[in-house]
């Protein structure tokens, strides 16, 4: 039984690289085709079936339409936003999936953090307006023409700045607004464990092999 199991696992490890390589090859072809048409400012192959490309804000609706209509990225996975407060940029990530070749591409668009505005894509997929509505509430991004953009999504009567921005301090807000129970102490586990439990551990432990 143990022998049969080992055979199975070996078979898996022999088979997987082949499909990985095939996937990678397909993705490379895709990127080649894309670079012929568009100016991709950044490209990173994160995994055999996942790549991230960065494009200009003006170009992004074009490239997403191209991906959907000509490259078969018919499944829209996710629209997300990352706040790069140091660079004064907001990064929008459109994650698309190709169901036939089974790979994914993330289209990253950097927009201005002071005046966040982006073209609404609500006519391309029927669920995108939900993401845009959420991002409008969470990051204050304006998508002109997106339906029900101004409606509350998760919060009600919110008067502070958009809650997912990095400079909104949730702990400070919670302590100011709600009533923290007196007597509750919470320790930062890192410092607590370092001081109380492992006093002899060197602070500059080996953190990561890539560091």
């Amino acid at each position: 039984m143990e022998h049969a199991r080992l055979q199975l696992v070996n078979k898996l490890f022999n088979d997987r690289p082949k499909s990985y390589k095939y996937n990678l090859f397909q993705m490379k072809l895709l990127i080649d085709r894309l670079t012929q048409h568009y100016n991709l400012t950044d490209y990173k192959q994160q995994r055999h079936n996942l790549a991230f490309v960065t494009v200009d804000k003006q170009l992004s609706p074009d490239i997403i339409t191209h991906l959907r209509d000509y490259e078969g990225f018919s499944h829209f996975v996710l629209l997300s936003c990352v706040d790069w407060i140091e660079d004064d940029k907001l990064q929008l990530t459109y994650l698309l999936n190709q169901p036939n070749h089974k790979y994914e591409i993330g289209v990253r668009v950097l927009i201005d953090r002071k005046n966040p505005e982006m073209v609404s894509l609500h006519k391309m997929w029927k669920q995108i307006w939900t993401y845009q509505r959420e991002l409008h509430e969470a990051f204050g991004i304006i998508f002109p023409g997106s339906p029900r953009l101004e409606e509350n999504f998760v919060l009600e009567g919110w008067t502070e700045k958009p809650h997912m921005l990095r400079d909104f301090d949730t702990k400070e807000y919670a302590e100011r607004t709600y009533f923290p129970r007196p007597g509750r102490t919470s320790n930062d586990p890192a410092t607590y464990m370092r001081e109380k439990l492992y006093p002899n551990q060197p602070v500059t432990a080996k953190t990561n092999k890539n560091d």
Partner: protein
Amino acid sequence: MSDLNINQKVSEMLQRSEANAQQDEKTFVRPEDELREVVAPDGSIIKINPLYDYYSGERPQEDKPKNAIVEKFLNWARSESIWVLGFGTGCGSIEIPPLVTPRYDMFRFGVQMRATPRQSNAFIISGYLSVKTLKRVIRSYEQMPSPKYVIALGSCTINGGMYYDSYSTINRLDKYLPVDVYIAGCMPRPEALLAGFGELKRLIKEGKGEKANEYARNFDEYKANQKKIIKDWNMPDYNW
């Protein structure tokens, strides 16, 4: 009651409701809830204040127990028949289905689920409360007939639990509603819930389940706390 009396009473109510409306600083009144004037079919002009027409804006009254012996008998009946409002306010409600199914059948102890606040006596706050839910919880709580009990489930209702720094959830439930029984844990097991019901029964039998009166007594304090965090206060102060 003669027509005159009724007219007088209506005008009194209107005056009171207008005064109430002016007192409250309402930044979030929806357009359909605003004060407005309507022309009746006979040409007279009627003032309408939808918020106070739809609900009673009166303060809650204390309902003190009257006859000790009768009350003792009623308390026994109340403790043996606890009707819980079926409002899953948080993730603790995942442990309610096991309670009404074969493993931990809570019907054995006279605890039943009801769908409407009018017919319920106990409110299980199942875990953390976001401010948006708290608003609905307050309305449901105030609609429940007295005597009513609140069971707070999970550590998040006691001191915020792991959401102590969240901008969306409250930290202490007892600042907004009077709590009878706390059940600690994240999440509390069904056995803990059954034990909590046992504790609630004991409290009711001892005549200590009078938190609804406490709410009426300290009404202003509770309201101030509630209004502090519910920015979108487009409802009357007390709604039956």
